[in-house]
């Protein structure tokens, strides 16, 4: 691999990130002028820009990035290109945690904007460790069992959410409905600030584990022989993934495919080195979700489509195309 290839990728990714963010800032029912974007005061456009557009674009990028980097990390950890936060049950756990928070800890959610992501994080963490424990045998994660365990945990979290919603009162039901629509609409600065620390912390943690993830992709035994801190890395990667997915799910609902697609796209261009794949997956994931959110706003304007629907509509065929392309490449 020529060393300049990651550099070229990052150049284009940053360019794309800026472009998508810009388009996202310009898209919406209210026309925002250049002057208003550059700090105009008082007018409706300027307020819409400051209070709605900027946090929304940031949030899309943060959540998409979190899903992208977690997908890359989980795929490396489980040595399986099919691992995806939604597929292996992490997102399901996060949803269950968030709904549990809405139903059982309503007053707490009102008191602190961190409460919802913390609930989602705890749910994601529990699901992650459950799935991992089910799929581990003699210290090795059995991939087929892992995917089956993910399906089981997803079904279980779905059922749990169903029970809770069934027993919820009117105001909880309203909160739940808003949450489960899972769109970036109505994102305010408080959501950005509540998820930002989680996403930044886990992103740094995961990127720092890049070298260890490289060793781990040969299996835990080989990684151990190469001096990698296998157990501590496994734990911290799972916790960091749960953190990031929890923070993103808490505000946007379960969004599939980004965690699956983003690392695949990166690997096609740059191979498997996690020191490149992790940060690049963050950027790709961020671009994907922000871009999907733009489409969600213009597809049936002035109404908005939930962004999850857009992601799935584009993501699924795209993923199939990847599979067809990668058939011969062992992906």
């Amino acid at each position, binding site marked *: 691999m020529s060393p300049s290839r990651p550099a070229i990728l990052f150049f284009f990714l940053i360019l794309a990130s800026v472009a998508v963010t810009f388009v996202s800032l310009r898209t919406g029912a209210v026309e925002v002028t250049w002057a208003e974007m550059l700090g105009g005061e008082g007018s409706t456009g300027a307020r819409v820009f400051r209070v709605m557009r900027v946090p929304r674009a940031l949030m899309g990028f943060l959540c998409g990035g979190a899903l992208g980097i977690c997908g890359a990390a989980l795929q490396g950890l489980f*040595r399986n290109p099919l691992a995806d936060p939604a597929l292996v049950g992490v997102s399901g756990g996060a949803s269950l945690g968030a709904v549990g928070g809405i139903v059982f800890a309503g007053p707490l959610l009102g008191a602190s904007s961190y409460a919802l992501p913390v609930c989602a994080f705890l749910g994601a963490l529990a699901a992650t460790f459950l799935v991992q424990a089910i799929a581990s045998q003699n210290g090795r994660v059995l991939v087929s069992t892992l995917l089956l365990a993910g399906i089981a945990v997803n079904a279980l979290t779905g059922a749990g959410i169903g029970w809770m919603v069934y027993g919820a009162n009117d105001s909880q039901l309203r909160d739940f409905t808003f949450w489960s629509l899972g769109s970036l609409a109505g994102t305010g600065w408080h959501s950005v600030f509540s998820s930002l620390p989680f996403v930044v912390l886990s992103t740094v943690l995961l990127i720092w584990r890049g070298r260890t993830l*490289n*060793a781990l*992709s040969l299996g835990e035994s080989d990684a*151990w022989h190469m*001096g990698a801190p296998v157990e501590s890395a496994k734990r911290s990667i799972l916790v960091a993934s749960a953190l990031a997915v929890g923070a993103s799910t808490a505000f946007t609902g379960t969004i599939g495919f980004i965690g699956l697609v983003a690392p695949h796209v990166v690997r096609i261009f740059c191979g*498997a080195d996690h020191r490149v794949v992790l940060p690049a997956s963050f950027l790709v994931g961020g671009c994907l979700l922000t871009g999907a959110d733009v489409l969600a706003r213009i597809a049936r304007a002035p109404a908005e489509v939930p962004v999850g629907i857009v992601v799935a509509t584009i993501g699924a065929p795209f993923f199939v195309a990847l599979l067809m392309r990668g058939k011969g490449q*062992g992906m």
Partner: protein
Amino acid sequence: MNTLAAENLSLSRDGRTVVGGLNFSVPPGSLLVVAGPNGAGKSTLLRVLSGELPPSQGRVLFGGRDIASIPHRELARRRVFLAQQSECRLPFLACEMALLGAEAAGHRGRAARERAAAALEMAGVSHLGSRMMSKLSGGEQQRVHWARVLAQLDEQTEDRLVFLDEPVSSLDLAHQHELLARARRLAKAGATVVAVLHDLNLAARYADELLLLNDGGMQSHGAPAQVLEPETISRVFQVSAQVIAHPTDGGPLVVVKDRIPNEPAE
């Protein structure tokens, strides 16, 4: 100079004792080959000797220290392990695989890349460097992993432990001999090499010492010429065999005639 020693070692796998009461030592600078029938516990023994698995009884000493007490990082700098199979489902290139070994040895950046390139050269797979691992044949993959292990071993060979679990299982004849000759040179340079092999003639050709395992424990341990007796071979492997003098070097040459049929039960 540090000696690798097994002290009253017992190993179990899935709760079943496969090897019991093993006592032996491998002096530095020598190559020990472990052979035996399937399921005799060869791979388990290798993983216990390397410190990866704890023995069910007894202990492994390296330079007089219990190997379990050597910090993981220090051990990884002094010990390399070539597994029977290393799966890799992510699209790593062969050169990146070797780079993993160089980085495990503590090299970074340019030094690591040079070290990896040198290791690929040593393993005779430089030409595969830019190929994807999943596109290589089984034998080619095995040689790239050998390069990774060589890169982790570094130039320093004294007081180093090299564990090879069936390192030639998918290699052609030329590469079998090339790999084992390299392993032997590592031993001559001061490393302690322990290799699991199935081919007794390869063992006879390259081993300083041979350890034959059978169900339940050590059958024989010693120089290949001492261990490779026709009776021992038939007892351990259930084949009728003759041992003749190698036409060129005079060492033992095992000629297997056929399998000894199982005793009919009752």
